C-alpha cells in the first residue's frame, strides 16, 4: 500500500469513529432534556432515573467525541499539510466558529453534569438545551467545511495560487445547505434508532420495563420524524450533486454512458474494467427524473470524463445502495411506529420490540455508507477540480504504521465505551 492510500485509510477510519461519537453527542442531549423536562413537570421518579442514565451516556460520548475530534484537528494537518496550507485560511471561518460552538458546549456540559445540586432547576435545564443546540451548530459548521471541498468557492485560483479569498462565501458555499440538512437529519435518525433499539432490546428481555419503554418512545419519535424527512432531503442532495458534481452522481449510479431518459439501477455488480453493470434491476427513466425532475433529461455518464478525473465506481455505487436501503427500512419502520401509537396492542407483542432491537445499527450503517459515497465519490480530488488528494498528502513516509496505530487505539476505545454502556444498563436495570 502506498503512502497516499494509507493516509486516506487512516483519515477514513478515524472519521468513521468520530462521526458516530459526534452524532450521539449531538443528539442524545435532546433526549436527555426531554426526559428532564418530564421529570420537572410530572415529578415521576422514572424520568429522573432515565435523565441521569442518559446524562452519563452523554458525558461518555461527549468526551469520546471531543477527543476523537481533537485528534482530527491534528490529523487534518498531519496527514494533509499541503491541503491545509492553502485551504486552511479559506475554510477557517467554519472551523473557528465550530471551535466557539464546541467551547460553549463544553461550558454547558460542565454546568449540566455538575449542576444538579446547586443550580436553579430552570437554568440547569436550559444548560442541557444549550449542549444540544451548540452540538448541532458544531455539526453544521464542520459539514460546511466538508461541503466546500465538494463545492469550492470564495476564492480565485490563478496559476496555482489562491487569491481574492472571501471566507464568508466559502462558508456559505453552494453545497453547504443540502449537505448540512442531510447530515443533521441523519444524526437524529441514526441516533434515534440506535438509542431506541438498545432500550427496545431491554424491553424485549423484560428488564425494568417502565424506564426502557419511556426511553424508547422519546428516542424513536426523534428518530422516526428524521427518518421520514430524510428522503426529501436526499432528493435535494441528489439534484444538487447532479448539477455540481455530475461525475460523482455517475459513479453513485454506476452510469457509464451519457444518455437521455436514463434508468435507475437497483443493486447490480459493477465491473470497472469492462465499464458495465450486471445483475441489476432497472427502473426505466427513473435516474433522469430523480436527478433533474424530467423523465427524458440527459444524464452525463462516466465516459464523458477523462480517466484520471473519475472516482472509483464500485465503492460509491455499493455504498449508495446500502445507504438508500437502510434509509428506506428506517422510514418504513418509522411509519410502523407512528401507526403503533394508534394500535397500542402492538406494544404488548414481543416481536414489536425485537424488530426495533434488530434495527439498532441500521442508522449508523446508512450514515457511514453515505459518507463513503460523498468522500470516495469526490476522488481523485481533495478540492473538487482544484487540488488532487495525492498532491495534498504529507511527504512523510511510513503512514501505514500510523494507520495501524490508530486502528489499535480506536478499537480499544470503542471496546471500552461499549463495555461501559453495558455496565450502565446493568446498573439501570438494577434500580427497577
Amino acid at each position, binding site marked *: 500500500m502506498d503512502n497516499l492510500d494509507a493516509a486516506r485509510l487512516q483519515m477514513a477510519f478515524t472519521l468513521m469513529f468520530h462521526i458516530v461519537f459526534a452524532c450521539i453527542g449531538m443528539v442524545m442531549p435532546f433526549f436527555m432534556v426531554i426526559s428532564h423536562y418530564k421529570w420537572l413537570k410530572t415529578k415521576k421518579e422514572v424520568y429522573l432515573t432515565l435523565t441521569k442514565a442518559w446524562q452519563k451516556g452523554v458525558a461518555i460520548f461527549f468526551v*469520546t467525541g471531543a477527543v476523537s475530534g481533537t485528534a482530527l484537528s491534528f490529523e487534518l494537518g498531519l496527514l494533509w499539510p499541503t491541503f491545509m496550507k492553502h485551504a486552511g485560511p479559506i475554510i*477557517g471561518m467554519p472551523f473557528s466558529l465550530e471551535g466557539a460552538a464546541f467551547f460553549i458546549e463544553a461550558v454547558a456540559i460542565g454546568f449540566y453534569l455538575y449542576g444538579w445540586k446547586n443550580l436553579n432547576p430552570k437554568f440547569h435545564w436550559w444548560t442541557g438545551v444549550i449542549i444540544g443546540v451548540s452540538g448541532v451548530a458544531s455539526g453544521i459548521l464542520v459539514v460546511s467545511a466538508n461541503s466546500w471541498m465538494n463545492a469550492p468557492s470564495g476564492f480565485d485560483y490563478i496559476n496555482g495560487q489562491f487569491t481574492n*479569498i472571501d471566507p464568508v462565501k466559502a462558508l456559505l458555499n453552494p453545497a453547504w445547505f443540502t449537505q448540512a440538512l442531510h447530515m443533521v437529519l441523519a444524526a437524529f435518525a441514526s441516533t434515534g434508532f440506535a438509542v431506541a433499539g438498545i432500550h427496545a432490546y431491554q424491553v424485549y428481555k423484560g428488564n425494568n420495563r417502565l424506564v426502557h419503554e419511556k426511553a424508547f418512545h422519546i428516542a424513536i419519535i426523534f428518530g422516526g420524524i428524521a427518518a421520514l424527512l430524510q428522503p426529501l432531503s436526499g432528493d435535494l442532495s441528489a439534484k444538487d450533486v447532479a448539477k455540481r458534481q455530475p461525475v460523482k452522481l455517475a459513479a453513485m449510479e454506476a452510469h457509464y454512458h451519457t444518455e437521455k431518459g436514463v434508468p435507475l439501477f437497483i443493486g447490480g455488480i459493477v465491473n470497472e474494467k469492462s465499464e458495465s453493470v450486471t445483475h441489476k434491476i432497472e427502473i426505466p427513466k427513473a435516474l433522469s427524473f430523480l436527478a433533474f425532475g424530467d423523465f427524458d433529461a440527459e444524464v452525463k455518464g462516466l465516459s464523458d470524463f477523462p480517466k484520471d478525473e473519475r472516482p472509483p465506481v464500485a465503492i460509491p455505487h455499493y455504498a449508495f445502495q446500502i445507504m438508500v436501503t437502510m434509509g428506506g427500512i428506517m422510514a418504513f419502520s418509522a411509519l410502523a411506529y407512528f401507526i403503533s401509537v394508534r394500535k397500542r396492542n402492538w406494544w404488548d407483542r414481543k416481536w414489536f420490540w425485537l424488530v426495533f432491537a434488530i434495527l439498532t445499527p441500521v442508522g449508523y450503517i446508512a450514515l457511514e455508507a453515505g459518507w463513503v459515497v460523498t468522500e470516495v465519490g469526490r476522488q481523485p480530488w481533495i478540492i473538487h477540480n482544484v487540488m488532487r488528494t495525492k498532491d495534498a498528502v504529507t511527504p512523510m513516509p511510513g503512514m501505514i504504521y500510523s494507520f495501524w496505530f490508530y486502528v489499535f487505539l480506536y478499537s480499544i476505545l470503542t471496546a471500552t465505551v461499549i463495555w461501559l454502556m453495558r455496565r450502565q444498563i446493568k446498573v439501570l436495570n438494577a434500580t427497577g
Partner: protein
Amino acid sequence: MLYVVLLFLVVSFFLYVLLGGADFGAGIVELFSSVDNQKPIKKTVYNVMGPVWEANHIWIIILIVILWIAFPETYNVIVVYLHIPLTLALLGITLRGAAFIFRHYDAIKGQSQKLYDSLFRIACLITPIFLGMSFGALVTGDIKLLERNPDLGFYDAYVHPWFQAFPIAIGCFFAALCSFLAAVFLIGEANADEKKMYIKKATVAIISVVVLGTIVLIIGFVQKRDFVLDFISDVYAIAAVGISALLLIPLWKTIRNGNVVWCRFLAGFQIALILFAAAIVHFPMVIQTASGRLDFMQNIAPESVINVLGISLIIGGLLILPGLFHLLKSFRMIKALEQDH
C-alpha cells in the same frame, strides 16, 4: 485585526499551558504519590477539575485553528516535521481524556479503576513531555526543510529534530512546570490534613523545575544552541526568568499563610514570565531551522481572512467568556470571588 488574532493566539497558548498544564500536572502529581495519597488526590482533582476539565483542553484546538487559518506557513512546518511527537502527544491527550471519564463515569467502581488510574497518570506525564519536545524541536535548529534537502532520509527529516537531548530536556522541563502548577493549585482546594502533603509536592515540583531548567540551559550551552546562547545574552529574557525565580519567595510565604488567591496568581505569573522569556528571544523568528530562522509574521493569510477570523474570535469570545466565568464562579473555582462574600 492582526493584533486581535495575535492576542487570541497568545491568550489561548497561555491558558492552555496554565489550565491544560495544571490538568496534566494533577495526573503527574498523582503518579508520583504514595498509594495512600493517591486516593484523596483523585477525589480533589475530580471535585475541582470535573466541571472544567474538558473546557481546559479546548484551548489547544483554538490554538491550532488560529495557527492554520492565519499562519499557514508556520503551521505547515510544524505538522510536517513534528508529525511523530505531535501524534504521540495526541495519543496522550486521547488516553487522558478517555481515562478521566472512564474512571469517574464507570457505573460500577471495581478492579478496572486501577487500570483507568494508571492510564490517566501515565498519559498525563507523556503528553506534556511530547508537547514540550515539539516546542523544543522548533527552537533546537535541527529541522531541515525538504525543499532545500530533497534527499533527506527519514531519520534526519522526521526523527532527529526532536529526538535528542535538548528537546527532550525541554519536554521534561515542561512536565515539571505542569506539576508545579497543579501542586500550587491543589493546595487551595485541600483540607488541613492534605494541605501539608500538597505543600511537600509543590516543593518537590519547584526543585524539579529549577533542576530541569538548569539542565536545559547547560545542554543548550554545551551544544551551542542559538536559542540558549541568545537567551542568556538577552536582557529581557534573563530579567523575566530572574523575576520568576525571585517570586518564589513571596510564593512560599503566601502558601504558608494559606493565601490561596495570591499563591495562584503568583504561580500563574511565574509561568507567564517563563513563557515570555522563551518567546522573546527570537520573536517573531520563532522557528529555528538548520538553514535559518522562519519569520512567524511572514506569509500570513490575506487580510480578508485575518479580518473574518478576528471578528469570529471576538464574537466567540463574547459568547464563551461570560459562560466560562459563570461556570467557574458557580463551582467556586475563582477564590478571589469567594473571599468577597
